């Protein structure tokens, strides 16, 4: 018991130094947690993917569409229970600023929402959406960000499909849980197709991807191959993969940046390690005479070493705990400010565990080097030592 009291008293001997070290720790642990959360947010889209959904796209690349008549042939593949379509629209709302960016997809209005049960819709709104050719379904996050209400008309300037398009909000879908991203607008593919037919007949009757629902998630690989076999050596070969793999293929393209953030998040831990190690080295050096006195009184080298490591760990535990506590409100503020970049911005339990683990590791490592020196010091030398 007196061991803990001694350690605790030691911390507050240099109030200013301990306070500075603690501040540094809180900032570092907070920064580490935020960066890990950013990395997680990057992967949010793939977390939402269901194992029961496959995505089929043009094998050359996503820029190339697939003919819509593939749908019936995919539907006939054994194991497939439903097929829907989705088409990236790539329109600009108001201007090019990131705050006004959101994704629009032209989808099969009839069954798209059946395939995505994680989007909670009201039956009457869904019906109204299905009935209105210019109708659109808007996610909760998007609706809140721009103040869209049912009945509003949203004008969007097409970049891939020229012209200004107007969509009427017919419903707002809610997320099932906090991994669901509700920042998109879905409208009728039929509406898109009929306009294209008028102006660019060559580009009509085409969709971006097919979303395939299968009954048994464990047969995903087999069914994917069966679908691709169906269209081998055709004009538009398909590439079918699970929705998760499809989403991850986007993230993989920006992997370098994710890697950089991840590496840098560990650099901040190394920096704070240097700061804490420095504090402990100085503290131990100043108290060498004290440690010699303790030894002279009969305390073993182990006790002296434990005294230093204990102090180091106690400081980092305190700093780590404060840092973790601060992470939640700061992450919430972050989300409020950057919600359009990161629709899902949640501090994961693993992140908290990693924060705690790194605080502990920093405390242990920073205490070890000075404690070895203090444990080894000869009583005579230590007593003679002056700072």
């Amino acid at each position, binding site marked *: 018991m007196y061991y803990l009291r001694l350690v605790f008293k030691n911390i507050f001997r240099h109030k200013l130094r301990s306070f500075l070290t603690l501040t*540094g720790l809180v900032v570092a642990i907070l920064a580490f947690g935020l960066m890990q959360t950013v990395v997680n947010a990057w992967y949010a889209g793939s977390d939402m993917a269901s194992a029961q959904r496959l995505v089929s796209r043009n094998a050359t*690349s996503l820029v190339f569409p697939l003919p819509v008549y593939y749908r019936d042939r995919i539907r006939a593949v054994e194991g497939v229970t439903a097929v829907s379509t989705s088409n990236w629209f790539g329109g600009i709302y108001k201007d090019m600023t990131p705050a006004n960016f959101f994704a629009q997809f032209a989808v099969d209005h009839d069954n798209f929402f059946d395939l995505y049960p994680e989007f909670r819709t009201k039956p009457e709104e869904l019906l109204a959406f299905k009935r209105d050719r210019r109708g659109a379904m808007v996610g909760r996050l998007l609706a809140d960000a721009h103040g869209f209400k049912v009945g509003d008309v949203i004008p969007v300037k*097409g970049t891939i499909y020229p012209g200004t398009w107007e969509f009427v909000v017919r419903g707002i879908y809610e997320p099932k849980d906090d991994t669901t991203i509700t920042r998109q607008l879905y409208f009728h593919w039929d509406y898109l197709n009929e306009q294209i037919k008028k102006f660019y007949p060559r580009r009509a009757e085409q969709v971006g991807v097919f979303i395939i629902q299968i009954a048994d998630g464990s047969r995903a690989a087999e069914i994917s191959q069966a679908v691709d076999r169906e269209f081998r050596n055709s004009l538009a070969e398909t590439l079918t993969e699970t929705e998760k793999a499809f989403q991850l293929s986007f993230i993989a*393209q920006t992997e*370098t940046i994710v890697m950089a953030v991840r590496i840098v998040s560990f*650099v*901040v831990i190394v920096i704070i390690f*240097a*700061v804490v190690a420095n504090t402990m080295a100085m503290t131990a050096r100043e108290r060498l005479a004290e440690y010699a006195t303790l030894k002279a009184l009969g305390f073993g080298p182990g006790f002296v070493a434990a005294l230093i490591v204990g102090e180091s760990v106690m400081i980092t535990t305190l700093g780590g705990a404060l840092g973790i506590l601060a992470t939640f409100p700061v992450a919430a503020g972050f989300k409020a400010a950057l919600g359009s970049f990161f629709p899902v911005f949640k501090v994961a339990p693993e992140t908290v565990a990693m924060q705690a683990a790194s605080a502990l590791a920093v405390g242990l490592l920073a205490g070890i080097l000075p404690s070895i020196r203090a444990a080894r010091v000869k009583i005579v030398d230590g007593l003679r030592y002056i700072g």
Partner: protein
Amino acid sequence: MKIPIAYVFRNLWTRKLTTLLTAGGMALVVFVFAAVLMLDAGLRKTLVGTGSYENVVLLRPAAQTEIQSAVYRDQASLVETLPEVARSEDGTPLVSKETIVLIAIPKRGSDKPANLVVRGMPAMGMRLRPQVRVIDGRMFRPGSSEVVVGRAISEGFDGTSIGEKLRFAGREWTVVGTFDGGKSGFDSEIWGDVDQMLQAFRRSAYSSVLARLGSADQFEAFSARIAADQRLILEVKQEPLYYQDQSKSLSTFISYLGIALSAIFSIGAMIGAMITMYASVANRTSEIGTLRAIGFRRSSILAAFLAESLLLALAGGIMGLVLASFLQAFTITTMNWQSFSQLAFGFHLTPSIAGSTLLFSLFMGLVGGFLPSVRAARLEIVDSLRAA
């Protein structure tokens, strides 16, 4: 009377571990700071180097990138007849009608595909881009299923070495050469014959038209003429500006990320410097008293401690900068969101980055060392002599 700098230097030298840890912490912060600036500079260099001001890019209105754009054959032919367009010795207009698509190829050492730009161009395309040279193999022959690949691609992607065949658009394309775009965005592209590509991809329209003007000053006249012509509903941009716009969001992202990280990290490093300097003052209380007693002024003490902190920061700054300069050997390939394709760019160290990095580290030293130095300067002679 000033305190000699040797005294300052030896103070740091005596406490090697502390000095090393503090400077090391600062070096890491400086490293991150410099790395981000270098990355941004590298990106800019890549994209500015991608074009020349005499060239203009013509796209369909509202198309942000060449990928989204379409220029009909009659429009493209009309552009060739405009008077501002330069002509070669034999009178052919210096215009390159091109088609641009994306294909997905796995990155080397992984099975995950990444998007690459494939550009179909006539023989004129090479002439309009004098900065591009074939460094290995030869150029593709017009009218054949041959392609040449940019340097960054041949290093980073599967099946892109000379002699290998790439399969896309239902055909096999033989890689016959590698070209060096002088660290420009072209290094991340695959080039082939435009007519072959149009056929293979079943397209009837070009994606974009690149034209050389008589001189860069004629741009105003040229764009006014396009705007006035009812048949040419096209958007005109000078080539370097077009490529700059392409990377605006990536560049903004990198600088925001960098500023945020540097700001957070520098707090840690400044605290580290402050702790070290406070300890340095506390350890030497009686020494400071002695210095004051033999006639050194408060201002000299302040200067000496500030100098110590600045020296510490400078050491960290130089360490960080040296570390960061090694980054120039690396190339980063990542997706440019606007064009939705891979872009390779490197770290680029400029004298101004080196300067601002060192200034940044000195600033950290100044902030971290100021309060402790003031404390040292304000010590009373009698108290401090008694302290030991």
